[in-house]
């Protein structure tokens, strides 16, 4: 029987996952990254609907969701960290 899914990855190119329930800092979960199940330890609390990084992202890296670029990091973002308006901007916006 499938366990309850806590986060969803929408496309195999994606480097972020979306939380489906409130997730606690320090908790460990499995998410599909580039087609393979990966163990991710959350570096912060993630509210439902919010995203966390599936890999270490350098400053200026492209954030991919739905297989498409949705943003660019404005600082380095570690694996398992919350990805939102504090660390990414629209890929077309000037910094």
């Amino acid at each position, binding site marked *: 029987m*499938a*366990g*309850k*899914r806590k986060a*969803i990855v*929408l496309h195999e190119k994606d480097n972020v996952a*979306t*939380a*489906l329930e409130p997730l606690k800092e320090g908790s460990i979960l499995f998410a599909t990254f580039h087609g393979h199940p990966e163990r991710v330890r959350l570096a912060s609390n993630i*509210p*439902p*609907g*919010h*995203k966390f990084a599936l890999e270490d992202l350098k400053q200026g890296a492209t954030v991919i*969701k*739905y297989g*498409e*670029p*949705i*943003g660019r990091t404005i600082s380095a973002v570690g694996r398992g960290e919350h*990805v*939102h*308006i504090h660390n*990414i*901007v*629209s*890929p*077309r916006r000037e910094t």
Partner: protein
Amino acid sequence: MIFQGYRREDGTAGTRNLVLVIPSVGCSQGAAQAIARGLKGAVYLPNILGCGQIGEDRAIVKRTLAGFGINPNVFSVLVVGNGCEENTAPALQKEIARSGKRVEALVIQEEGGTRRTVLKGRQIVKEMLGQSARIVREPIPLKELVVGTECGGSDFTSGLASNPAVGIASDMLIAEGATVILSETPELIGAEHLVAQRARTAETGRKILNAVAWWENRALSSGQDIRKSNPAPGNISGGITTLEEKSLGCIYKGGTGCIEEFLPYASRPSQKGLVYMDTPAHDIEQLTGMMAAGSQVAVFTTGRGTPCGSPIGPVIKVTANRDTYRMMRDNIDMDVSRILRGSETVRSAGERILREIIAVASGKMTKAESLGQRDFAIFTMHVNI
């Protein structure tokens, strides 16, 4: 794949077999309503326009009303005019009659008032209903379907589950040779480059970009900067970070195909596959535009829940929010929330949606039809004078 539909004179096929009463102007809406009242299989359009429009709005109103008459879900049509309107009943009758179906027209000022018009109109509609009862459903290839897609009352489950699942169904429909309409131009603002680059030709891509610029400037002229006010604070607290992310969640319901054609509001597609129609994000105006373009069925994803339906076509409501489905079971047709609980894949939910589309196209009633939801509103660009 096939569905069971009604073959029409012009070679198209309907999923419903309705007699439609169209008021060519708001003034004849009351008569049209009275004509259709209590007659099973007859519906009227609650149209308030047809007089007082300026510029391209005149053509939009005429095209939308004619498109409803021509839609293959409609067996025959009675147009009711007042007499002094711009959008006259005889002109609309002529336009719809090109489809080969029976179209009659009545003018209140010529018939001698509402009572006489209604009496005569009901006789005509009863006769049309008798004729419509004689035709039966037959197997129709799925490629003859034009399926409208829409989302409204969205929440975070829409972009994560219900839209991607409808996207799977869209891809399967397109693989069968059917037509799928994607629309809602204001929702593209911020991600228009991603949509335009999926266009088959550079010209189609340019038309999409121009349409987005038109909406953006129109909102700006009313003091609203959509690019700055979006994603809205509610989107951001829900986890949406950028406009690209918000728009991608929305356009995912059209699947992954190339955009074959750009359609002005309420215009008929000339291509199969995924087509783009320029509509507002306003749920009812959007649905009206897609039905006027000849959609015989629509799929509508929702997070918060919506009762919306069309007078002439089934609208299948899909949600991935389990609480919404439980709260609004009488409005929502399909629950795909198991995607978010990990017990159903997006693909499996998409296949279920396709099966539901075929069942509904073949006669299964949607919740909105059972409730008699007959929402209708025409998009216009200018003020009415």
